[in-house]
């Protein structure tokens, strides 16, 4: 089984979000980039298939050279090969197009992406890839089993969970549940050493068309002062919620 994991490199969740160049760019100063959490669950699930089904794992990212540290971490966790498409990610369409073009002649059985990236939260890339390549797609995926050429996946929908079956190839948008938090692997010394020897191929982008463009970032307005209510005077809270905030 051949697996491709799409990895988006995102600011660590504790990062302070600031902007530069007149608020047109994200300020990467002092920010540590990590594997997008949803993709980390996916990569860990891929490792499970590697151990059980002898699957091979490639990881791919569309981005600049600075992302290679994150790709090396994916190799240290256990991926076999990394591919970086050398292009600044402008929008999801351009990312999806380039990844699709790479996948086209490669016969991957399974493509694992995340439900969303935590930087732009688009929830776009895997769905677009599925349509460009005309392959099956399941997002908000919380469980995935493969049996021969068949997949059984669970999807979190509003108000419940549905179990879906389909044939490979399949692309998923994964999230927590695919594996548990406690299953996530921290690369060990051996993994880190091995990662240095593993291939990290840089390929030129196939095209650079994009359809959307981010112009300016804004920080949320400063919060107004909090009103404290005495725990012995809960009627006051109800009054505030009813008459002032008008939410009950």
């Amino acid at each position, binding site marked *: 089984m051949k697996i491709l994991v799409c990895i988006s490199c995102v600011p660590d*969740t504790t990062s302070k979000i600031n902007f530069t160049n007149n608020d047109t760019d994200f300020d990467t100063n002092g920010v540590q980039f990590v594997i997008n959490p949803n993709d980390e669950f996916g990569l860990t699930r891929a490792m499970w298939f590697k151990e059980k089904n002898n699957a091979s794992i490639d990881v791919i990212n569309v981005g600049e050279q600075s992302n290679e540290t994150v790709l090396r971490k994916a190799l240290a966790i256990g991926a076999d090969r990394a591919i970086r498409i050398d292009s600044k990610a402008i929008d999801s369409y351009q990312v999806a197009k380039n990844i699709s073009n790479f996948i086209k002649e490669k016969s991957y059985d399974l493509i694992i992406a995340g439900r969303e990236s935590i930087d732009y*939260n688009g929830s776009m890339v895997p769905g677009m890839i599925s349509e460009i390549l005309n392959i099956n797609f399941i997002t908000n995926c919380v469980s995935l089993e493969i049996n021969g050429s068949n997949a059984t996946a669970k999807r979190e929908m509003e108000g419940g969970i*549905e179990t879906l079956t389909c044939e490979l190839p399949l692309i998923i948008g994964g999230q927590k549940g695919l594996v548990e938090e406690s299953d996530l692997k921290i690369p060990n010394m051996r993994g880190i050493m091995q990662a240095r020897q593993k291939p990290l191929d840089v390929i030129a982008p196939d095209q650079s068309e994009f359809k959307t463009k981010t112009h300016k970032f804004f920080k949320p307005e400063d919060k107004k002062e909090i009103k404290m209510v005495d725990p012995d005077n809960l009627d006051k809270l109800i009054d505030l919620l009813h008459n002032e905030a008008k*939410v009950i």
Partner: protein
Amino acid sequence: MSIIAYIESSNREPKKSAYEVISYAKNISEQLSAELIVVAINVDKTNEISNYGPDKIIVVNNQSIKNFNPKIYAEVIYQICIKNSTNHVILGGGADSKFLAPILSIKLDAGYVSNVVGAPSNYEPFTVKRTSFSNKSFCDVSISSKNKIISISSNSFEKKKIRSNPEIIEFDAEIPDSKITQASVDLSKGNISIADADIVVSAGRGMKGPENWHLIENLASTLNAATACSKPVSDLGWRPHSEHVGQTGKPVATNLYIAIGISGAIQHLAGVSSSKVKVVINNDPEAPFFKAADYGIVGDAFEVVPKLNEKLKAFKAENN
């Protein structure tokens, strides 16, 4: 030229988010003098839709697609777009809409922006405001392609009643075969979903253990609210993963968010901060959540929550 508002439904009725989506699309249709078409799949009750000003309602009634399927739904909407020279498709932020939208964007060769929180600020180029970095910031995004798809975050756009007398059209869509089979569905019983709720009652590790969650559930039931939790609570298995909210869980953009025994870590706040009003109940006056909330109570959840529940019950009884 026309604008399509695609609305989600449950039990053959439009979901609450539908009216926000229609109002959003109505605003654009007025600006561009374009026809507004509401597209509803397997929906019977269309009366209420007419209160929000559509020119047409296109209904697709087909038993073979009673289960949501993103590829098929995208194909159906695509066929309607082609027939009606549609350039703009507006959808809500529900899981199904966000599942089908990227597929539709490829079919229509459209630029797609999700998590939009405001009306277009400009039409040349077409520009909207969306959230980014899990609600830690916003940004202006423009779409350069002729066709455009927008999915709007829930509770981010004011519904506006404009009575109209729309033509109701049954559309006989060509339904492709599904390559994905639904083997089973496991519905969580009687719960209100976080995405649909006006009020969310959320609790964290401060509740000490799953055996105490009846306090949270009782309060939620009084308020007709959904229940949610912090990440460690779901990691510990005290609550199902589907209740985990925050940067790596579900986003919450509700009218009232009540956080009980939650410290207010940056990753938690990121996901819930776009809720309109936030109430924090925590016994530690230094808990970071107090810096991000509108109303705060320093107190022991085990005392405050049951008391608050009793008082709210009385309040509800009086005000209903």
